[in-house]
């Protein structure tokens, strides 16, 4: 019924590197972007922050346009290498995924900067997008939602190609909120581990270009179903995520047995990881090698869905499974197959999942052709 949509190019900017290649090397070397920092008035907490030194050097080298906030600079740097080589037309859409935008500006009150679309407008102008930018603000599934939305826009012929940008920063605003939820880990986070005790926040920017032109990576299925249960706690039966996975498999026309690797959400809270294990089991995916990348990057909120989707694609392209950092012993009630060693593996299909506040869930299947 709908034409297929393909992933063409992507890039990332994180504490582990200011481009994709550096990030991949860091992952292979089992490096972590998580370290002790002060965040605003919050002293001594583990977060994954981009080195200000490296950031400053990059800014100087690239002659960044003036008047951009730190978040917007991240978006510019991550987007520039690929976007500057694209032919942007009136049929090219632009989607920005972010949960909090220029959140630190709230300390000065509500200014233009506080509105999430203001960053989209600025970036659109700099990169020469002529269509009205779209901003996806869907909690921690935003990054994945944005890609799903891009696919749907192309399939409905609203546009021919889409540039997706995603970013969120580590902030006192968000960190203090997670602390109020008693959800921040006292050590670098340990997804799916028996001793996990919360998230480690992180920051990143990511970029992806998709279109109806054929490429090696096809988006073969996607589905995003709400738990409709509680605004902050995930469904104990993983209902929304389970339905999302089933929906994605149905669209792709494949069974669970054809999934080679799962890039889970794995935030390392007691409830999220448990919920995911339950959902994976319900969907007959208990044997599939699975990891969370949050042990390397922390939880990058609105960037996480896209950042981790990109790395899943890299795993596919390179036939390499990355070990799930922070994991020692299984700490969920249902068996799942956590990747404990980075190693080569022939891969064709990857499932990326995400969940977030509000009871949102998202599942996407990518196939290497």
């Amino acid at each position, binding site marked *: 019924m709908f034409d297929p949509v393909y992933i063409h190019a992507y890039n990332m900017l994180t504490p582990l590197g200011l481009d994709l290649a550096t990030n991949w090397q860091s992952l292979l070397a089992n490096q972590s972007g998580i370290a002790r920092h002060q965040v605003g008035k919050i002293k001594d907490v583990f977060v994954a922050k981009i080195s200000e030194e490296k950031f400053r050097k990059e800014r100087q080298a690239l002659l960044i346009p003036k008047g951009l906030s730190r978040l917007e600079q991240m978006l510019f740097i991550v987007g520039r290498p690929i976007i500057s080589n694209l032919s942007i037309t009136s049929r090219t859409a632009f989607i920005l995924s972010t949960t909090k935008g220029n959140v630190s500006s709230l300390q000065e009150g509500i200014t233009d900067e506080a509105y999430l*679309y203001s960053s989209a407008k600025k970036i659109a102008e700099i990169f020469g997008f002529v269509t*009205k930018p779209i901003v996806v*603000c869907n909690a921690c599934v935003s990054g994945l939602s944005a890609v799903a939305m891009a696919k749907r826009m192309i399939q409905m012929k609203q546009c021919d190609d889409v540039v997706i940008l995603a970013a969120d920063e580590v902030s006192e605003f968000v960190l203090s909120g997670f602390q109020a939820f008693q959800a921040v880990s006292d050590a670098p986070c340990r997804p799916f581990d028996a001793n996990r005790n919360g998230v480690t926040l992180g920051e990143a920017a990511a970029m992806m270009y998709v279109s109806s032109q054929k490429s090696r990576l096809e988006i073969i299925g996607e589905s995003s*179903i709400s738990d409709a249960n509680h*605004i902050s706690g995930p469904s104990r039966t993983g209902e929304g995520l389970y*339905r999302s996975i089933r929906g994605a498999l149905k669209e792709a026309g494949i069974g669970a047995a054809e999934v080679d690797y799962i890039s889970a959400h794995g935030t390392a809270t007691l409830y999220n990881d448990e919920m995911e294990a339950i959902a994976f089991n319900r969907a007959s995916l208990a044997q599939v090698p699975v990891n969370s990348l949050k042990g390397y990057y922390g939880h990058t909120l609105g960037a996480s869905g896209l950042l981790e989707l990109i790395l899943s694609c890299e795993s596919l392209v390179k036939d390499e499974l990355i070990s799930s950092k922070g994991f020692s012993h299984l700490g969920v009630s249902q068996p799942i197959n956590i990747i404990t060693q980075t190693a080569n593996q022939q891969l064709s299909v990857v499932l990326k999942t995400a969940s977030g506040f509000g009871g949102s869930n998202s599942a996407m299947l990518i196939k290497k052709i």
Partner: protein
Amino acid sequence: MQNQAYIIHHARIAGNKLYRNGELIFTAQAEGFADFAKQAYKELNLDYPKFYKMDNLSKLAILCADVVLSEAYNHQNVAILLSNKSGSLDTDRRHQASIQQEDNFYPSPAIFVYTLANICLGEISIRHDLKSENIFLINETFDAETMHAQASYLLQSKKADYVLCGWVELFDEKYKAVLYLVGPSGQTEHSINQINDLINK
């Protein structure tokens, strides 16, 4: 394949007034949104104590959704596509105030959870038990073209049987919500023109 969809019901809340399908069904003498919301809650017989724990944006969303969605739509495959301009800024301010001073640093989980625009959508999902597709978009003005295409996709792909779409905007005491339900049959054609008419009236 029949691709034409229809707008089945719509509702609007603005300036202390509540409309269903274009008809004024309630108007309140109220001092501010919180007061209006309380009166509307009683008028609509919501009987939903969680309402009082919500932030203003979620209260607005719940009230408007209640006018559009009769009980018949509960537990059905009704997708939700919402948008606004200010995101969750109204509540963001309150959270920021709770952490602004070092010697009065008491972030509240009940406030923080509402510092995401899509929570108001989540509240609608919970109240009406809608385990369905959903997304929240932010834009300066309502993007009818995108909403139309996304809703159409959901119906054509059969990922949803109905789609609840619209605009739920609140900042300070300025608020406006317009929600419309799209489905396979109804009075009004689901078209970009009709949508713009509804939103911008």
